C-alpha cells in the first residue's frame, strides 16, 4: 500500500515486515524516530519483538550481538557519534559472523557539533567487516532493510544500510509498503545452524592463536566477496516479488557517456537532474550510483567506468589529509586499467550543506573544461 512516510519510518516499517525479534537501541538525532516508532510497535504488540533500552550505542550493539548469537533476527539503528561509539563491537559483530542489520543515518561527526548529512560516520567504519549499502530514496531504504536480512543471513555477516540525515530521514515521500505475506515469501524465518542452546553447548568467540586467525580472516574476506554475487541474486528475487529493481551499483544514462558522475545517497538524486540537462544539450554525461560499498564491486566499477574519458566522484565525506573516501577507492579500483579515465575528486555538501543540480552542473562543467583536475580534491562551494 502506498503511503507518504519519512525515511526513518521506512526503516521501522521494514523492520516490522521482517519480523525482527530483538531491537536494542539508544536514541540519537536524526535516528531517534526510527527506534521511537519501533518501541511503540513493540509496546502495542503490533510487532512481536523485545525492545531493549540501553545506556549507550556500544551496549546497543552488544545487546544485538547477544540476541543474534542466541539465534534470533536482531536490529539496531544509530548515527554519527553513536556509530563511532559502536566501533569496537562492530568488529565483533562481523568477526562473530552475526547477521545483524544496522540502519545508520549519515550525519556529520563533531566537533563542531552538527546533526546534518555527511557520510564520514559510516565510511570510517569501512574496515569493520560490515557490509555497507547506501540509499537514495525512502522506498530504497525500506526495500534495503528487507534485502539486508536476506543477504546477512545468507553470508553470515552484518549489514549496515545508510542514508542521509534529514534529506531522507525527515523527508516525507511516497513509499509502497509491501504486504507482510510477500515479505514472508521472500524472507524465510531465521534459523541458524549455530546458536546458543543449553541442550547443545558450544563455545563462541574463543581465542584463536596465530595458527588459525589468519585463515579465519581469509574466510571472512572470501565470504564478504561472495556477498557481491549473492546480493545480485537477492535483488533479482526481490524484483520478482516486489517489482522494484536494485543492484550492487546502478547506472543512469551511461550508455555512450564520456563523463560519468559517481555519487552515493541523495546527491545521486540531484545528479540525475543535472545529467538530464546535459543530455538535453546533447552532451554525453552519465551517472553511476554507488550502492554496495563493502564489499567493493571492483569488477562492476571497472566495467561501468573503464571506457569513459572522465569520472567525477562526489564525496560528502572527508578523510583529512587525503580527501574523499569514494574517490580514493574508485581510483584504486581503476588503477590496473590501461587508458584509465581521468578522475576528478570532489568534496561537497559536508555537514549537510545543500548540493543542488546547479552545483552538479558546475562540477561537470569543471571536468569538461579541464584536461585534468585543478585541485585534488576540489572542495566545491567553499566559502572564501
Amino acid at each position: 500500500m502506498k503511503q507518504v512516510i519519512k525515511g526513518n519510518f521506512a526503516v521501522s516499517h521494514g523492520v516490522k515486515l521482517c519480523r525482527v525479534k530483538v531491537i536494542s537501541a539508544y536514541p540519537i538525532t536524526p535516528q531517534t524516530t526510527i527506534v521511537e516508532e519501533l518501541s511503540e510497535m513493540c509496546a502495542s504488540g503490533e510487532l512481536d519483538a523485545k525492545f531493549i533500552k540501553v545506556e549507550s550505542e556500544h551496549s546497543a550493539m552488544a545487546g544485538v550481538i547477544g540476541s543474534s548469537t542466541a539465534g534470533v533476527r536482531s536490529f539496531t539503528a544509530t548515527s554519527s557519534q553513536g556509530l563511532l561509539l559502536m566501533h569496537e563491537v562492530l568488529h565483533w559483530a562481523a568477526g562473530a559472523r552475526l547477521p545483524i542489520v544496522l540502519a545508520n543515518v549519515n550525519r556529520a561527526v563533531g566537533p563542531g557539533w552538527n546533526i546534518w548529512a555527511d557520510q564520514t560516520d559510516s565510511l570510517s567504519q569501512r574496515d569493520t567487516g560490515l557490509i555497507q549499502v547506501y540509499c537514495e530514496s525512502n522506498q530504497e531504504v525500506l526495500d534495503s532493510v528487507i534485502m539486508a536480512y536476506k543477504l546477512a543471513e545468507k553470508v553470515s555477516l552484518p549489514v549496515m544500510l545508510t542514508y542521509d540525515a534529514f534529506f531522507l530521514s525527515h523527508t516525507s515521500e511516497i513509499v509502497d509498503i509491501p504486504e507482510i505475506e510477500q515479505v514472508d515469501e521472500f524472507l524465510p524465518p531465521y534459523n541458524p545452524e549455530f546458536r546458543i542452546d543449553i541442550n547443545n553447548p558450544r563455545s563462541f568467540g574463543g581465542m584463536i592463536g596465530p595458527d588459525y586467525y589468519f585463515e579465519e580472516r581469509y574466510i571472512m574476506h572470501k565470504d564478504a566477496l561472495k556477498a557481491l554475487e549473492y546480493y545480485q541474486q537477492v535483488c533479482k528475487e526481490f524484483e520478482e516479488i516486489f517489482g522494484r529493481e536494485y543492484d550492487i551499483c546502478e547506472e543512469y544514462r551511461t550508455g555512450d557517456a564520456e563523463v560519468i558522475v559517481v555519487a552515493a545517497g541523495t546527491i545521486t538524486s540531484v545528479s540525475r537532474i543535472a545529467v538530464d540537462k546535459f543530455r538535453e544539450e546533447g552532451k554525453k554525461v552519465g551517472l553511476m550510483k554507488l550502492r554496495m560499498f563493502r564489499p567493493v564491486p571492483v569488477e562492476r566499477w571497472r566495467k561501468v567506468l573503464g571506457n569513459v574519458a572522465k569520472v567525477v566522484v562526489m564525496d560528502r565525506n572527508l578523510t583529512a589529509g587525503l580527501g574523499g573516501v569514494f574517490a580514493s577507492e574508485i581510483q584504486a579500483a581503476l588503477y590496473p586499467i590501461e587508458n584509465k579515465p581521468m578522475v576528478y575528486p570532489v568534496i561537497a555538501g559536508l555537514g549537510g550543506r545543500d548540493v543542488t543540480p546547479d552545483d552538479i552542473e558546475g562540477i561537470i562543467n569543471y571536468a569538461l573544461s579541464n584536461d585534468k583536475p585543478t585541485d585534488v580534491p576540489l572542495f566545491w562551494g567553499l566559502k572564501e
Partner: protein
Amino acid sequence: MIEIRFHGRGGQGAVIGSEVLTHAFFIEDKYVQAFPAFGVERRGAPVMAFCRIDDKEIYLRNQIYKPDHVVVLDSLMLESVGVTQGLKKNGSVLINCKRSPNHYRDLLGDDYQLYVVDAASVAVEHRLGSPSNPIVNTAILGAFSKATGLVKIESIEQAIEEYVPVKKENNKKAAHAAYERVIKA
C-alpha cells in the same frame, strides 16, 4: 513542479502543516515531498518547512530557494524574516493575521498575489491551542486551498482525518472555516 515554503515559529505546527498538505496532494494522485528546514527546533524560533508537488517522481532534494507559494503562520515574521525571498513573480503569499491585506501590500509590493486569513481566531474558536498560542496549521491549509485553488478542501479534510492524530473534527472544521474566510488583497 510546484514548490511551497512555510514560515512559522517552533510550536505552531508548520512542519506538521506541510506534511498534511502533501498528504492532501497525495490523495489527489500527485507525487509529493515534504521536509522541514533542518534545524534544531526550539519553541518560538523561526522555522521553515517545504513541500514539493509534481506529476512525476521528484528527484530534487535541496531546500526550496524559489518557491511558487509562501505560507506565513506568524505575521510578525514579515518584519524579521525575508519571507518573500526568492518567491517567483506572481507567486502567492498567504498570511495568518488580523490586519487588512492592504497593510501587507504596502510592505511586500505588487509582485505577488496576497491573501490573509485570521487563522488564529479560527483556531481558538475550534479549541486548537490556546488564545496566546493558537495552533493554526490546519486552519491555514483550508485558506491555502481557497487562495491557490491547487488542492480541494475535501482533500485537505481527508488528509487531516488520516494524518492528524488528535481533534480530527475540530481541525477539519477549522480548515473549512478558514477556507470561507480567506481575503484576497
